[in-house]
């Protein structure tokens, strides 16, 4: 989270809406530990990362949807091993669970 604060500040100063995705759980092997964070602004600009690059694209789409819906946030999972998980698998074969929320707190 620390590494994305500068970008978030800049976006907020420009009046942009911002969503933050954080890894909350990894099952099996995963590229980043819980706490890895990525921020997305309403224009689709990105700071930070939550995986080795496997799921970032899908996270941007979800983050933009959450901002558009004015959702309080939700859990999103990616991986091969979970039926509910999105199909954009992780190359490592694990499952990554993210919480994506608007920065409105």
């Amino acid at each position, binding site marked *: 989270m*620390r590494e994305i*604060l500068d970008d978030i500040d800049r976006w907020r100063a420009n009046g942009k809406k911002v969503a933050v995705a954080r890894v*909350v759980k990894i099952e099996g092997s995963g590229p980043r530990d*819980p706490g890895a964070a990525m921020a997305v602004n309403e224009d689709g600009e990105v700071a930070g990362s939550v995986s080795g690059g496997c799921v970032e694209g899908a996270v941007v789409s979800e983050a933009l949807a959450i901002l558009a819906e004015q959702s309080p946030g939700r859990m999103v999972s990616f991986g091969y091993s979970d039926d509910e998980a999105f199909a954009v698998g992780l190359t490592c074969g694990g499952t990554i669970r993210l919480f994506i*929320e608007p920065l409105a*707190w």
Partner: protein
Amino acid sequence: MLLYERFRDLVRTETPVALATVIDGPNVGAKLMVVREGTTETVEGSLGNPDLDRVAARDVAGELEAGRTGVRHYGPEGQATPEDLVDTPTVSVFIETFAPPPQMWIFGAVDFTAALGRVAKVLGYRVTVCDAREIFATKRRFPMADEVIVSWPAPMFERRGHTLGPRDAVCILTHDPKFDVPAIQGALATTVGYIGVMGSRKTHNKRLERLAEVGVSGARDLERIMSPIGLDLGGRTPEETAVAICAEIIARRTGHGATSLKNTSGSIHS
């Protein structure tokens, strides 16, 4: 000021803080934060229910203490035991800690060191093993250690003593006067929360004489030195000794008397 702005400033100044977020259940997105500034701990924000806040704040403070990040599940009013959670909608809370893990420095590359290192890892410590003897102080003998350093105590404390604080522990297992006296002196010069030194009562008494010779004799210093090391659990193996040491570290931190709960009354978690 928004909670986020307060959080951001704390993270920037490297103030230890743990942030709890409801990720599933009622009040998704609600936040509670435990902040440690010096010796004071404050709770800010709310997860949406006062009972849940009270229970979660305790756990969040514990995670902050241990430097851990993870998910916990509660009932909507903070119920935390499995029996209470049956047939109850649960609240999932992601607790993220922004603090370096506590450190444990273990002096002496002996059998007890390996066992203590393993138990310390379970408790979330960053473990450093230090010994001046190159053939014993190897990563192969202590694979659980985050680092193994070949050094005498004095230079180790000169270089890195300032990184030790109240959450950290120094355990001196050498039994060797050449090593344990300077290690004790080095540890006393820091604000480290726990200093334990291994040895029998006889060794301990002799060590006190040697410490007095180098000028360590003040009541305040002697009070900080836990020796013989560990709680009196009656254990014998290195692993049992490691548990006795770690239990003593926890008891010193919490100020609890380390007796069986069966024999005490009052709040368990205060």
